[in-house]
């Protein structure tokens, strides 16, 4: 909801599940982007009862800000437990902003093989795109002040919630 600073992540997740339900099938590959996207993908995978196991992607080695900011401290291993070639994939992230993370994810994905199609599902789209990237499944469009960062946190019992903080320059 525009103007509301802290959307309810659990509500948005429900909305996303219903948006995606008609599209997914037994061969659909769900790929969460570390770290928030992986949490969302796990919940989606569970709720949509998908057959193909969920995958996780860490895009640290494909980011375009390596020169400026160096390597992140907590790089995780990417795990894609299925064949990418010829498959319909859905990338899952928690927040869609400039689109650079998705660009990196696409580059990494294509090093694994040639998918039939790639869609994007995101819990929150905060606008501010710097690349021509769009999500097919969006929990909600939210306006966030440019000086702020909106991040997903996972609390007790796996409950997802958004927090706002000052943005790292």
């Amino acid at each position, binding site marked *: 909801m525009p103007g509301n600073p802290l959307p309810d992540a659990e509500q948005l997740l429900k909305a996303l599940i219903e948006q995606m339900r008609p599209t997914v099938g037994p061969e659909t590959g769900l790929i969460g982007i570390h770290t928030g996207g992986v949490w969302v993908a796990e919940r989606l995978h569970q709720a949509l009862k998908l057959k193909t196991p969920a995958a996780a992607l860490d895009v640290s080695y494909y980011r375009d800000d390596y*020169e400026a900011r*160096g390597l992140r401290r907590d790089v995780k*291993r*990417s795990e894609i437990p299925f064949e990418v070639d010829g498959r319909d994939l859905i990338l899952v992230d928690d927040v869609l902003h400039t689109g650079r993370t998705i660009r990196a994810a696409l580059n990494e994905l294509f090093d*694994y093989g040639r998918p039939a199609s790639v869609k994007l599902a995101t819990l929150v789209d905060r606008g501010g795109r710097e690349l021509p990237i769009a999500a097919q499944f969006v929990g909600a469009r939210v306006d966030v002040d440019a000086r702020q960062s909106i991040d997903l946190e996972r609390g007790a019992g796996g409950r997802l919630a958004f927090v706002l903080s000052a943005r790292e320059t």
Partner: protein
Amino acid sequence: MWLNPANPQLDKKGQLHHLLTLEGLPADILWQILDTAKTFVSTRVKKVPLLRGKSVFNVFFEPSTRTRTTFEIAAKRLSADVINLNVSVSSQSKGESLLDTVDNLSAMHADMFVVRHGESGAPHFIARHVAPDIHVINAGDGRHSHPTQGLLDMYTIRHYKKDFSSLRVAIVGDVLHSRVARSQIHAFTTLGCPEIRVIGPKTLLPAHVEQLGVHVYHDMRQGLKDVDVVTMLRLQNERMQGALLPSAQEFYKYYGLTQDKLALAKPDAIVLHPGPMNRGVEIDSSVADGKQSVILPQVTFGIAIRMAVMSIMAGNK
């Protein structure tokens, strides 16, 4: 010590700028390297674009095919351009000074030098003289340090043993001449290993080695009791010529790792060797090829460790 300057390996923000020795590196940098290396081990995607457009110069003043090859593979898997220079053969023999060689190479817009040299302290010397944005990785200097080997050994041990804080480890053989031994000792100490043993004859142990924080054993059977990790060091032929040892046979009898000596260690103890091995001198073939040996995995992990070091350093400004 009033002449002590700042740690030359770290930049002003305390990040890794050069990797010259494991001594004096904070634990969190070591953990970062080990954790980052994990992401490179057995991934389906062999090549990532992290170092694309960067040049890595392998500057080897001492020949080594295996180490140079692993650094080359590591750099290429990061999409870097790799240039191999066997300086031992070309310019040094023409009398070009080390400094001139380094200056010439710097002028070729290298981003990173991987240096192996026969003299202890040579990479430190090179790091002092290169332009501030060039990174230097020590691939082995004299008997001083082989930091990437130490790191890959730690990675290997963590892979099989998980936790350093309860390990009893032993390093056996020619510790005096071994840069691997020194690097391992520093790493074990920083990562919290409670008991580090060195085992060897007096002629092959350095003066005051206990001051590095190790327990000294001259009796291998005593030293191996209940040990979790055994590192066997390579014994070079020159040691017999320099009156440090009478023969390889006698060394093998008292300090070679055989099945029955290994049996004194814990039943799930692992055996490491930095390679190349002298089968029948410091280690029995049956042990080297046995189920407790992790010598081959060490090699695989070596590539991931070197990728981790390069990718962390190249991003630090």
